[in-house]
Protein backbone atom coordinates (compact mmCIF):
# COMPACT_ATOMS: atom_id res chain seq x y z
CA UNK A 1 0.00 0.00 0.00
CA UNK A 2 1.41 3.32 -0.98
CA UNK A 3 0.97 5.75 1.86
CA UNK A 4 1.70 9.36 2.61
CA UNK A 5 5.25 8.71 3.58
CA UNK A 6 6.04 7.21 0.21
CA UNK A 7 4.84 10.33 -1.52
CA UNK A 8 6.77 12.48 0.84
CA UNK A 9 9.90 10.45 0.27
CA UNK A 10 9.49 10.77 -3.48
CA UNK A 11 8.95 14.46 -3.04
CA UNK A 12 12.06 14.77 -0.90
CA UNK A 13 14.10 12.82 -3.43
CA UNK A 14 12.96 14.97 -6.30
CA UNK A 15 13.58 18.07 -4.26
CA UNK A 16 17.12 16.88 -3.60
CA UNK A 17 17.62 16.10 -7.26
CA UNK A 18 16.51 19.61 -8.05
CA UNK A 19 18.85 21.01 -5.42
CA UNK A 20 21.78 19.03 -6.78
CA UNK A 21 20.85 20.29 -10.21
CA UNK A 22 20.99 23.86 -8.95
CA UNK A 23 24.38 23.23 -7.46
CA UNK A 24 25.97 21.29 -10.28
CA UNK A 25 24.62 22.90 -13.41
CA UNK A 26 26.67 25.59 -15.10
CA UNK A 27 24.08 26.65 -17.63
CA UNK A 28 21.54 29.17 -16.43
CA UNK A 29 18.72 27.59 -18.37
CA UNK A 30 19.41 24.26 -16.75
CA UNK A 31 19.47 25.96 -13.44
CA UNK A 32 16.01 27.31 -14.00
CA UNK A 33 14.80 23.84 -14.87
CA UNK A 34 16.27 22.56 -11.67
CA UNK A 35 14.35 25.11 -9.61
CA UNK A 36 11.22 24.10 -11.45
CA UNK A 37 11.92 20.53 -10.47
CA UNK A 38 12.21 21.57 -6.87
CA UNK A 39 8.94 23.46 -6.95
CA UNK A 40 7.21 20.50 -8.53
CA UNK A 41 8.58 18.24 -5.84
CA UNK A 42 6.84 20.51 -3.38
CA UNK A 43 3.67 20.17 -5.44
CA UNK A 44 3.75 16.43 -5.05
CA UNK A 45 4.09 16.81 -1.35
CA UNK A 46 1.23 19.26 -1.13
CA UNK A 47 -1.08 17.13 -3.19
CA UNK A 48 -0.29 14.06 -1.10
CA UNK A 49 -0.71 15.81 2.21
CA UNK A 50 -3.89 17.43 1.01
CA UNK A 51 -5.24 14.04 0.19
CA UNK A 52 -4.07 12.67 3.53
CA UNK A 53 -5.83 15.38 5.53
CA UNK A 54 -8.75 15.42 3.16
CA UNK A 55 -8.27 19.15 3.03
CA UNK A 56 -8.22 21.20 -0.14
CA UNK A 57 -5.83 23.89 1.04
CA UNK A 58 -2.80 21.92 0.03
CA UNK A 59 -4.02 21.53 -3.50
CA UNK A 60 -4.74 25.22 -3.62
CA UNK A 61 -1.19 25.86 -2.58
CA UNK A 62 -0.01 23.56 -5.31
CA UNK A 63 -2.02 25.48 -7.88
CA UNK A 64 -0.52 28.73 -6.72
CA UNK A 65 2.92 27.23 -6.95
CA UNK A 66 2.29 26.16 -10.50
CA UNK A 67 1.08 29.62 -11.39
CA UNK A 68 4.03 31.30 -9.76
CA UNK A 69 6.47 28.88 -11.30
CA UNK A 70 5.07 29.82 -14.68
CA UNK A 71 5.44 33.53 -14.11
CA UNK A 72 8.86 32.98 -12.68
CA UNK A 73 9.90 31.25 -15.87
CA UNK A 74 8.43 34.08 -17.90
CA UNK A 75 10.37 36.74 -16.02
CA UNK A 76 13.46 34.58 -15.77
CA UNK A 77 13.58 33.82 -19.46
CA UNK A 78 13.13 37.49 -20.22
CA UNK A 79 16.13 38.36 -18.13
CA UNK A 80 18.06 35.49 -19.67
CA UNK A 81 17.39 36.76 -23.15
CA UNK A 82 18.69 40.26 -22.48
CA UNK A 83 21.64 38.76 -20.67
CA UNK A 84 22.36 36.50 -23.61
CA UNK A 85 22.13 39.44 -25.97
CA UNK A 86 24.65 41.34 -23.89
CA UNK A 87 27.04 38.54 -23.01
CA UNK A 88 26.45 35.95 -25.66
CA UNK A 89 26.69 33.20 -23.10
CA UNK A 90 24.58 31.60 -20.43
CA UNK A 91 27.45 30.00 -18.61
CA UNK A 92 27.51 30.82 -14.91
CA UNK A 93 31.27 31.09 -14.81
CA UNK A 94 31.21 33.95 -17.29
CA UNK A 95 29.02 35.88 -14.97
CA UNK A 96 31.37 37.17 -12.31
CA UNK A 97 32.24 40.76 -13.05
CA UNK A 98 31.27 41.82 -9.54
CA UNK A 99 33.11 40.27 -6.65
CA UNK A 100 34.79 40.99 -3.35
Amino acid at each position, binding site marked *: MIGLSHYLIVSAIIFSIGLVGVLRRRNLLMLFFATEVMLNAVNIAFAAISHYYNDLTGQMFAF*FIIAIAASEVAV*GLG*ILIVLFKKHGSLDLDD*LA*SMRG
Partner: protein
Amino acid sequence: MLEPIHVSLESLNLITLAPMLIAIAGGLIILILDLINGKLHKSLYVMMTILILFIDFGAVLGLNVNERGFFDVMLIDGISIISQLMIIGGSMIFIPLALTSKRFHEYSYPEFFALFLFMIAGFQFMVATDNLILIFVGIETASLALYTLIALHNRSNSYEAAVKYFTMGALAAAFFAMGSAVVYALTGSIELYKVAEVMATRLNETGLMIAIFGSSVLLLVAFSFKLSLFPFHTWAPDVYEGASAPLAGYMSVIPKIAAFVVSIRLFGMYIDLGVEWVRIVILVMAVLTMTLANIMALVQNDVKRMLAYSSISHAGFIMAALALDTTEGNTAIFLYYALFMFTNLGAFAMLWISRHKKRRFDKRYDHPYEKFAGLVQIMPMGAVVMGIFMLSLAGVPPFSVFWGKIYVMQAAVNAGYIWLAIVMALNSAIAAYYYLKLVVYMFLKDPVKDVDIVYYNISKPLMVIIGFATVATVAAIFYVQPLVSYLYYMISASGY
Protein backbone atom coordinates in the same frame (compact mmCIF):
# COMPACT_ATOMS: atom_id res chain seq x y z
CA MET B 1 -23.86 17.33 -4.08
CA LEU B 2 -21.92 20.25 -2.91
CA GLU B 3 -23.85 22.98 -1.25
CA PRO B 4 -23.69 26.31 -3.06
CA ILE B 5 -21.47 28.67 -1.20
CA HIS B 6 -23.10 31.64 0.37
CA VAL B 7 -20.81 34.41 1.21
CA SER B 8 -22.10 37.80 2.20
CA LEU B 9 -20.14 40.69 0.80
CA GLU B 10 -19.94 42.21 4.22
CA SER B 11 -18.22 39.25 5.75
CA LEU B 12 -15.55 39.52 3.11
CA ASN B 13 -14.54 42.83 4.62
CA LEU B 14 -13.11 43.93 1.31
CA ILE B 15 -11.79 47.11 2.81
CA THR B 16 -8.84 45.10 4.06
CA LEU B 17 -7.91 44.45 0.46
CA ALA B 18 -8.35 48.05 -0.58
CA PRO B 19 -4.74 49.21 -0.17
CA MET B 20 -3.34 46.49 -2.41
CA LEU B 21 -6.09 46.96 -4.91
CA ILE B 22 -5.34 50.66 -5.06
CA ALA B 23 -1.71 49.96 -5.83
CA ILE B 24 -2.58 47.39 -8.50
CA ALA B 25 -5.20 49.61 -10.02
CA GLY B 26 -2.71 52.46 -10.03
CA GLY B 27 -0.24 50.32 -11.92
CA LEU B 28 -2.89 49.46 -14.46
CA ILE B 29 -3.86 53.11 -14.85
CA ILE B 30 -0.31 53.99 -15.67
CA LEU B 31 -0.14 51.26 -18.28
CA ILE B 32 -3.42 52.45 -19.80
CA LEU B 33 -2.17 56.04 -19.87
CA ASP B 34 0.81 54.86 -21.81
CA LEU B 35 -1.45 53.05 -24.27
CA ILE B 36 -3.38 56.23 -24.88
CA ASN B 37 -0.38 58.50 -25.20
CA GLY B 38 3.08 57.03 -25.46
CA LYS B 39 5.02 60.24 -25.23
CA LEU B 40 4.35 61.26 -21.69
CA HIS B 41 7.23 62.51 -19.61
CA LYS B 42 8.50 60.53 -16.66
CA SER B 43 7.64 63.32 -14.26
CA LEU B 44 3.98 62.60 -14.88
CA TYR B 45 4.46 58.97 -13.95
CA VAL B 46 6.43 59.90 -10.89
CA MET B 47 3.73 62.22 -9.69
CA MET B 48 1.04 59.68 -10.55
CA THR B 49 2.87 57.08 -8.54
CA ILE B 50 3.18 59.41 -5.60
CA LEU B 51 -0.50 60.22 -5.76
CA ILE B 52 -1.47 56.59 -5.92
CA LEU B 53 0.80 55.81 -3.02
CA PHE B 54 -0.73 58.72 -1.18
CA ILE B 55 -4.19 57.22 -1.57
CA ASP B 56 -2.78 53.86 -0.62
CA PHE B 57 -1.29 55.40 2.48
CA GLY B 58 -4.63 56.91 3.38
CA ALA B 59 -6.36 53.62 2.86
CA VAL B 60 -3.97 51.90 5.20
CA LEU B 61 -4.40 54.60 7.80
CA GLY B 62 -8.12 54.04 7.64
CA LEU B 63 -7.89 50.36 8.54
CA ASN B 64 -8.99 49.17 11.92
CA VAL B 65 -6.60 47.23 14.01
CA ASN B 66 -7.05 43.49 14.41
CA GLU B 67 -9.47 42.71 11.67
CA ARG B 68 -9.63 39.84 9.30
CA GLY B 69 -11.15 39.82 5.89
CA PHE B 70 -11.48 38.06 2.58
CA PHE B 71 -12.16 34.58 3.89
CA ASP B 72 -10.04 35.39 6.89
CA VAL B 73 -7.04 35.37 4.66
CA MET B 74 -6.21 38.99 5.24
CA LEU B 75 -4.97 39.87 8.66
CA ILE B 76 -4.90 43.53 9.55
CA ASP B 77 -3.13 43.74 12.86
CA GLY B 78 -0.83 46.38 14.25
CA ILE B 79 2.32 45.27 12.58
CA SER B 80 0.65 44.89 9.26
CA ILE B 81 -0.55 48.47 9.44
CA ILE B 82 2.73 49.97 10.55
CA SER B 83 4.71 47.93 8.10
CA GLN B 84 2.43 48.92 5.25
CA LEU B 85 2.73 52.53 6.26
CA MET B 86 6.49 52.25 6.29
CA ILE B 87 6.56 50.44 2.95
CA ILE B 88 4.37 53.05 1.31
CA GLY B 89 6.10 55.95 2.99
CA GLY B 90 9.51 54.64 2.01
CA SER B 91 8.36 54.15 -1.53
CA MET B 92 7.06 57.67 -1.66
CA ILE B 93 10.40 59.13 -0.83
CA PHE B 94 12.11 56.71 -3.17
CA ILE B 95 10.22 57.38 -6.32
CA PRO B 96 11.08 61.09 -6.76
CA LEU B 97 14.68 59.99 -7.08
CA ALA B 98 13.71 59.14 -10.66
CA LEU B 99 13.63 62.85 -11.39
CA THR B 100 17.31 63.23 -12.03
CA SER B 101 18.76 65.88 -14.27
CA LYS B 102 20.21 63.24 -16.55
CA ARG B 103 17.93 60.86 -18.35
CA PHE B 104 18.13 57.27 -17.30
CA HIS B 105 16.05 55.31 -19.70
CA GLU B 106 14.46 52.93 -17.21
CA TYR B 107 12.42 55.80 -15.80
CA SER B 108 11.08 56.75 -19.15
CA TYR B 109 9.29 53.41 -19.34
CA PRO B 110 5.88 53.58 -17.71
CA GLU B 111 6.33 49.87 -17.03
CA PHE B 112 8.88 50.78 -14.44
CA PHE B 113 6.26 52.59 -12.39
CA ALA B 114 3.61 49.97 -12.95
CA LEU B 115 5.98 47.26 -11.82
CA PHE B 116 6.96 49.37 -8.89
CA LEU B 117 3.35 49.65 -7.79
CA PHE B 118 2.79 45.92 -8.27
CA MET B 119 5.81 45.27 -6.17
CA ILE B 120 4.39 47.44 -3.41
CA ALA B 121 1.15 45.52 -3.63
CA GLY B 122 3.17 42.36 -3.28
CA PHE B 123 4.85 43.63 -0.15
CA GLN B 124 1.52 44.68 1.25
CA PHE B 125 0.13 41.21 0.69
CA MET B 126 3.13 39.72 2.42
CA VAL B 127 2.62 41.71 5.56
CA ALA B 128 -1.14 41.71 5.68
CA THR B 129 -1.75 38.03 5.99
CA ASP B 130 -0.85 35.02 8.01
CA ASN B 131 -1.72 32.62 5.26
CA LEU B 132 1.33 30.91 3.84
CA ILE B 133 -0.12 30.87 0.34
CA LEU B 134 -0.70 34.55 0.31
CA ILE B 135 2.69 35.17 1.82
CA PHE B 136 4.18 33.08 -0.96
CA VAL B 137 2.22 34.91 -3.60
CA GLY B 138 3.14 38.26 -2.11
CA ILE B 139 6.82 37.41 -1.96
CA GLU B 140 6.87 36.24 -5.53
CA THR B 141 4.86 39.16 -6.87
CA ALA B 142 7.19 41.59 -5.19
CA SER B 143 10.35 39.69 -6.09
CA LEU B 144 9.54 39.16 -9.72
CA ALA B 145 8.79 42.85 -10.07
CA LEU B 146 11.97 43.72 -8.26
CA TYR B 147 14.12 41.47 -10.48
CA THR B 148 12.72 43.27 -13.45
CA LEU B 149 13.28 46.70 -11.94
CA ILE B 150 16.90 45.81 -11.37
CA ALA B 151 17.32 44.55 -14.87
CA LEU B 152 15.74 47.67 -16.29
CA HIS B 153 18.78 49.64 -15.25
CA ASN B 154 20.26 48.46 -18.53
CA ARG B 155 23.88 47.95 -17.66
CA SER B 156 25.67 44.70 -17.97
CA ASN B 157 26.15 44.75 -14.21
CA SER B 158 22.45 45.12 -13.74
CA TYR B 159 21.66 42.02 -15.76
CA GLU B 160 24.21 40.10 -13.85
CA ALA B 161 22.71 41.37 -10.62
CA ALA B 162 19.21 40.51 -11.73
CA VAL B 163 20.20 37.02 -12.75
CA LYS B 164 21.99 36.39 -9.50
CA TYR B 165 19.13 37.70 -7.48
CA PHE B 166 16.61 35.84 -9.56
CA THR B 167 18.31 32.47 -9.42
CA MET B 168 18.92 32.59 -5.75
CA GLY B 169 15.43 33.94 -5.22
CA ALA B 170 14.00 31.00 -7.08
CA LEU B 171 15.95 28.63 -4.87
CA ALA B 172 14.72 30.47 -1.81
CA ALA B 173 11.17 30.22 -3.12
CA ALA B 174 11.59 26.50 -3.42
CA PHE B 175 12.81 26.34 0.14
CA PHE B 176 9.87 28.39 1.29
CA ALA B 177 7.44 26.18 -0.55
CA MET B 178 9.03 23.07 0.91
CA GLY B 179 8.97 24.58 4.33
CA SER B 180 5.32 25.36 3.94
CA ALA B 181 4.72 21.82 2.83
CA VAL B 182 6.37 20.48 5.96
CA VAL B 183 4.34 22.84 8.12
CA TYR B 184 1.23 21.71 6.32
CA ALA B 185 2.16 18.12 6.78
CA LEU B 186 2.67 18.68 10.46
CA THR B 187 -0.47 20.61 11.17
CA GLY B 188 -2.83 20.23 8.28
CA SER B 189 -3.12 23.95 8.02
CA ILE B 190 -1.37 26.88 6.42
CA GLU B 191 -2.99 29.57 8.49
CA LEU B 192 -0.36 30.52 10.99
CA TYR B 193 -2.71 30.95 13.94
CA LYS B 194 -4.07 27.46 13.38
CA VAL B 195 -0.60 26.12 12.79
CA ALA B 196 0.42 27.50 16.15
CA GLU B 197 -2.53 25.87 17.88
CA VAL B 198 -1.96 22.49 16.36
CA MET B 199 1.75 22.58 16.79
CA ALA B 200 1.34 23.44 20.46
CA THR B 201 -0.57 20.21 20.98
CA ARG B 202 1.87 18.13 19.00
CA LEU B 203 5.06 19.54 20.49
CA ASN B 204 5.48 16.67 22.86
CA GLU B 205 4.97 13.89 20.36
CA THR B 206 8.08 11.84 19.99
CA GLY B 207 9.98 12.16 16.77
CA LEU B 208 8.14 15.23 15.69
CA MET B 209 10.75 17.63 16.90
CA ILE B 210 12.90 16.87 13.90
CA ALA B 211 10.07 17.83 11.58
CA ILE B 212 9.40 21.03 13.51
CA PHE B 213 13.07 21.92 13.39
CA GLY B 214 13.14 20.97 9.74
CA SER B 215 10.24 23.20 8.85
CA SER B 216 11.79 26.07 10.73
CA VAL B 217 15.08 25.56 8.93
CA LEU B 218 13.52 25.52 5.50
CA LEU B 219 11.59 28.70 6.21
CA LEU B 220 14.62 30.23 7.83
CA VAL B 221 16.70 29.63 4.72
CA ALA B 222 14.10 31.34 2.61
CA PHE B 223 13.86 34.38 4.84
CA SER B 224 17.55 34.52 5.60
CA PHE B 225 17.95 34.94 1.89
CA LYS B 226 15.46 37.77 1.83
CA LEU B 227 17.00 39.38 4.88
CA SER B 228 20.52 38.64 3.64
CA LEU B 229 21.71 36.79 6.70
CA PHE B 230 24.98 34.94 6.64
CA PRO B 231 25.55 32.63 4.76
CA PHE B 232 22.64 33.51 2.52
CA HIS B 233 23.72 37.09 2.03
CA THR B 234 26.09 36.52 -0.86
CA TRP B 235 23.76 38.03 -3.43
CA ALA B 236 23.38 41.33 -1.63
CA PRO B 237 26.63 43.15 -2.42
CA ASP B 238 26.55 42.20 -6.07
CA VAL B 239 22.90 43.05 -6.51
CA TYR B 240 23.29 46.37 -4.74
CA GLU B 241 26.25 47.18 -6.87
CA GLY B 242 24.45 46.21 -10.04
CA ALA B 243 21.24 48.00 -9.23
CA SER B 244 20.94 51.74 -9.54
CA ALA B 245 21.83 53.56 -6.37
CA PRO B 246 18.33 54.56 -5.30
CA LEU B 247 17.03 51.09 -5.96
CA ALA B 248 19.85 49.64 -3.91
CA GLY B 249 18.94 51.95 -1.08
CA TYR B 250 15.34 50.96 -1.46
CA MET B 251 16.18 47.28 -1.48
CA SER B 252 18.13 47.59 1.71
CA VAL B 253 15.06 48.82 3.55
CA ILE B 254 11.60 48.17 2.15
CA PRO B 255 11.73 44.50 1.11
CA LYS B 256 13.46 43.82 4.37
CA ILE B 257 10.68 45.40 6.36
CA ALA B 258 8.22 43.12 4.59
CA ALA B 259 10.42 40.11 5.16
CA PHE B 260 10.83 41.03 8.79
CA VAL B 261 7.11 41.19 9.33
CA VAL B 262 6.72 37.70 7.96
CA SER B 263 9.70 36.58 10.03
CA ILE B 264 8.15 38.00 13.15
CA ARG B 265 5.01 36.06 12.44
CA LEU B 266 6.79 32.82 11.55
CA PHE B 267 9.74 32.63 13.89
CA GLY B 268 7.98 34.48 16.66
CA MET B 269 5.52 31.63 16.50
CA TYR B 270 8.25 29.03 16.86
CA ILE B 271 9.88 30.88 19.74
CA ASP B 272 6.54 31.41 21.44
CA LEU B 273 5.92 27.72 21.15
CA GLY B 274 9.03 27.18 23.18
CA VAL B 275 11.27 26.03 20.39
CA GLU B 276 14.36 27.71 21.88
CA TRP B 277 16.48 26.14 19.19
CA VAL B 278 15.15 28.56 16.62
CA ARG B 279 16.06 31.48 18.82
CA ILE B 280 19.56 30.21 19.25
CA VAL B 281 20.03 29.61 15.55
CA ILE B 282 18.73 33.04 14.72
CA LEU B 283 20.96 34.66 17.32
CA VAL B 284 24.02 32.86 16.02
CA MET B 285 23.20 33.79 12.47
CA ALA B 286 22.51 37.37 13.47
CA VAL B 287 25.81 37.71 15.28
CA LEU B 288 27.69 36.09 12.41
CA THR B 289 25.92 38.33 9.95
CA MET B 290 26.67 41.57 11.66
CA THR B 291 30.26 40.66 12.40
CA LEU B 292 31.25 39.14 9.09
CA ALA B 293 29.46 41.75 7.04
CA ASN B 294 31.19 44.40 9.08
CA ILE B 295 34.65 43.06 8.59
CA MET B 296 34.00 42.58 4.90
CA ALA B 297 32.75 46.13 4.68
CA LEU B 298 36.03 47.24 6.22
CA VAL B 299 37.99 46.21 3.18
CA GLN B 300 35.68 47.50 0.47
CA ASN B 301 36.94 50.02 -2.03
CA ASP B 302 33.57 51.04 -3.32
CA VAL B 303 31.17 53.10 -1.27
CA LYS B 304 28.12 51.45 -2.69
CA ARG B 305 29.45 48.01 -1.96
CA MET B 306 30.43 49.19 1.49
CA LEU B 307 26.90 50.41 2.05
CA ALA B 308 25.64 47.07 0.81
CA TYR B 309 27.68 45.24 3.39
CA SER B 310 26.71 47.77 5.98
CA SER B 311 23.05 47.17 5.36
CA ILE B 312 23.67 43.44 5.65
CA SER B 313 25.23 44.15 8.98
CA HIS B 314 22.33 46.31 10.05
CA ALA B 315 19.98 43.52 9.07
CA GLY B 316 21.92 41.17 11.30
CA PHE B 317 21.67 43.70 14.07
CA ILE B 318 17.92 43.78 13.77
CA MET B 319 17.58 40.06 13.32
CA ALA B 320 19.05 39.75 16.79
CA ALA B 321 16.22 41.92 18.07
CA LEU B 322 13.79 39.56 16.42
CA ALA B 323 15.26 36.63 18.28
CA LEU B 324 14.48 38.34 21.57
CA ASP B 325 10.80 37.87 20.78
CA THR B 326 9.69 40.61 23.15
CA THR B 327 7.38 43.46 22.36
CA GLU B 328 10.32 45.78 22.74
CA GLY B 329 12.40 43.68 20.43
CA ASN B 330 9.73 43.81 17.77
CA THR B 331 9.22 47.51 18.30
CA ALA B 332 12.96 47.89 17.90
CA ILE B 333 12.78 46.29 14.46
CA PHE B 334 10.33 48.83 13.18
CA LEU B 335 11.82 51.77 14.97
CA TYR B 336 15.24 50.86 13.64
CA TYR B 337 14.04 50.55 10.09
CA ALA B 338 11.97 53.70 10.31
CA LEU B 339 15.03 55.63 11.44
CA PHE B 340 17.46 53.74 9.22
CA MET B 341 15.28 54.32 6.16
CA PHE B 342 15.86 58.06 5.98
CA THR B 343 19.55 57.89 6.54
CA ASN B 344 20.11 55.01 4.21
CA LEU B 345 17.98 56.35 1.39
CA GLY B 346 19.71 59.66 1.87
CA ALA B 347 23.12 58.08 1.61
CA PHE B 348 22.21 56.16 -1.53
CA ALA B 349 20.66 59.27 -2.99
CA MET B 350 23.96 61.02 -2.45
CA LEU B 351 25.59 58.28 -4.48
CA TRP B 352 22.92 58.68 -7.07
CA ILE B 353 23.63 62.35 -7.67
CA SER B 354 27.24 61.53 -8.35
CA ARG B 355 26.30 59.12 -11.09
CA HIS B 356 27.36 59.81 -14.64
CA LYS B 357 25.16 58.50 -17.38
CA LYS B 358 27.80 56.64 -19.31
CA ARG B 359 31.17 57.19 -17.75
CA ARG B 360 32.24 55.13 -14.83
CA PHE B 361 34.82 56.27 -12.35
CA ASP B 362 37.06 53.37 -13.14
CA LYS B 363 36.81 50.01 -14.77
CA ARG B 364 35.69 48.10 -11.76
CA TYR B 365 33.83 50.52 -9.56
CA ASP B 366 31.56 53.43 -10.05
CA HIS B 367 31.63 54.81 -6.53
CA PRO B 368 35.07 54.18 -5.10
CA TYR B 369 36.14 56.19 -2.09
CA GLU B 370 38.50 58.21 -4.23
CA LYS B 371 35.56 59.64 -6.07
CA PHE B 372 34.53 61.43 -2.91
CA ALA B 373 37.96 62.60 -1.92
CA GLY B 374 37.91 66.26 -1.02
CA LEU B 375 34.19 66.53 -1.56
CA VAL B 376 34.09 69.23 1.07
CA GLN B 377 36.03 71.48 -1.25
CA ILE B 378 33.89 70.74 -4.27
CA MET B 379 30.48 70.59 -2.69
CA PRO B 380 30.59 71.58 0.96
CA MET B 381 26.94 71.07 1.76
CA GLY B 382 26.93 67.73 0.02
CA ALA B 383 29.91 66.64 2.04
CA VAL B 384 28.35 67.77 5.29
CA VAL B 385 25.11 65.98 4.49
CA MET B 386 26.86 62.80 3.47
CA GLY B 387 29.00 63.09 6.58
CA ILE B 388 25.89 63.31 8.71
CA PHE B 389 24.47 60.23 7.03
CA MET B 390 27.67 58.34 7.67
CA LEU B 391 27.82 59.39 11.31
CA SER B 392 24.21 58.44 11.68
CA LEU B 393 24.87 55.02 10.23
CA ALA B 394 27.83 54.68 12.58
CA GLY B 395 25.49 55.33 15.46
CA VAL B 396 26.79 58.68 16.60
CA PRO B 397 24.16 60.51 18.60
CA PRO B 398 21.92 62.44 18.11
CA PHE B 399 21.45 61.24 14.54
CA SER B 400 18.59 58.93 13.78
CA VAL B 401 20.17 55.49 13.68
CA PHE B 402 21.62 56.01 17.15
CA TRP B 403 18.16 56.01 18.67
CA GLY B 404 17.33 52.82 16.87
CA LYS B 405 20.56 51.34 18.07
CA ILE B 406 20.04 52.12 21.70
CA TYR B 407 16.50 50.87 21.50
CA VAL B 408 17.69 47.57 20.09
CA MET B 409 20.44 47.36 22.66
CA GLN B 410 18.10 48.28 25.47
CA ALA B 411 15.72 45.59 24.26
CA ALA B 412 18.57 43.10 24.31
CA VAL B 413 19.58 44.15 27.81
CA ASN B 414 16.01 43.99 29.03
CA ALA B 415 15.61 40.50 27.66
CA GLY B 416 18.70 39.47 29.58
CA TYR B 417 21.01 39.26 26.59
CA ILE B 418 23.76 41.51 27.83
CA TRP B 419 26.38 39.67 25.84
CA LEU B 420 24.36 40.43 22.75
CA ALA B 421 24.31 44.10 23.63
CA ILE B 422 28.07 44.03 24.01
CA VAL B 423 28.51 42.25 20.69
CA MET B 424 26.33 44.89 19.12
CA ALA B 425 28.38 47.62 20.73
CA LEU B 426 31.65 46.16 19.49
CA ASN B 427 30.22 45.72 16.04
CA SER B 428 29.15 49.32 15.98
CA ALA B 429 32.70 50.23 16.83
CA ILE B 430 34.08 48.16 13.95
CA ALA B 431 31.47 49.60 11.64
CA ALA B 432 32.44 53.12 12.61
CA TYR B 433 35.72 52.58 10.80
CA TYR B 434 34.32 52.20 7.33
CA TYR B 435 31.80 54.95 7.70
CA LEU B 436 34.54 57.14 9.01
CA LYS B 437 36.68 56.20 6.05
CA LEU B 438 34.26 57.98 3.77
CA VAL B 439 34.14 60.97 6.10
CA VAL B 440 37.91 61.02 6.04
CA TYR B 441 37.96 60.91 2.27
CA MET B 442 35.41 63.65 1.98
CA PHE B 443 36.79 65.99 4.58
CA LEU B 444 40.42 65.26 5.06
CA LYS B 445 41.74 64.42 1.63
CA ASP B 446 42.21 66.38 -1.52
CA PRO B 447 40.28 65.64 -4.71
CA VAL B 448 41.98 63.16 -7.03
CA LYS B 449 40.34 63.82 -10.39
CA ASP B 450 38.71 66.70 -12.17
CA VAL B 451 36.48 68.52 -9.81
CA ASP B 452 33.35 68.50 -11.99
CA ILE B 453 32.78 64.79 -11.78
CA VAL B 454 30.86 64.67 -8.62
CA TYR B 455 27.41 66.02 -9.08
CA TYR B 456 26.21 65.48 -12.62
CA ASN B 457 22.92 64.18 -11.60
CA ILE B 458 21.63 66.66 -9.11
CA SER B 459 18.22 68.20 -9.53
CA LYS B 460 15.73 70.06 -7.39
CA PRO B 461 13.59 67.03 -6.49
CA LEU B 462 16.69 65.14 -5.46
CA MET B 463 17.79 68.01 -3.32
CA VAL B 464 14.40 68.10 -1.69
CA ILE B 465 14.54 64.40 -0.95
CA ILE B 466 18.05 64.61 0.41
CA GLY B 467 17.10 67.66 2.44
CA PHE B 468 14.16 65.79 3.84
CA ALA B 469 16.33 62.81 4.70
CA THR B 470 18.85 65.12 6.36
CA VAL B 471 16.24 66.80 8.49
CA ALA B 472 14.77 63.46 9.44
CA THR B 473 18.23 62.23 10.35
CA VAL B 474 19.27 65.22 12.38
CA ALA B 475 16.01 65.93 14.14
CA ALA B 476 15.32 62.34 15.05
CA ILE B 477 15.48 63.15 18.73
CA PHE B 478 12.25 65.10 18.45
CA TYR B 479 10.11 62.50 16.74
CA VAL B 480 11.44 59.35 18.30
CA GLN B 481 9.04 59.63 21.20
CA PRO B 482 5.78 59.71 19.17
CA LEU B 483 7.20 57.11 16.84
CA VAL B 484 8.14 54.76 19.63
CA SER B 485 4.89 55.10 21.46
CA TYR B 486 2.87 54.58 18.28
CA LEU B 487 4.90 51.57 17.22
CA TYR B 488 4.83 50.09 20.67
CA TYR B 489 1.12 50.58 20.92
CA MET B 490 0.43 48.99 17.56
CA ILE B 491 2.70 46.07 18.18
CA SER B 492 1.46 45.29 21.61
CA ALA B 493 -2.08 45.65 20.30
CA SER B 494 -1.41 42.91 17.81
CA GLY B 495 0.02 40.70 20.50
CA TYR B 496 3.66 40.48 19.49
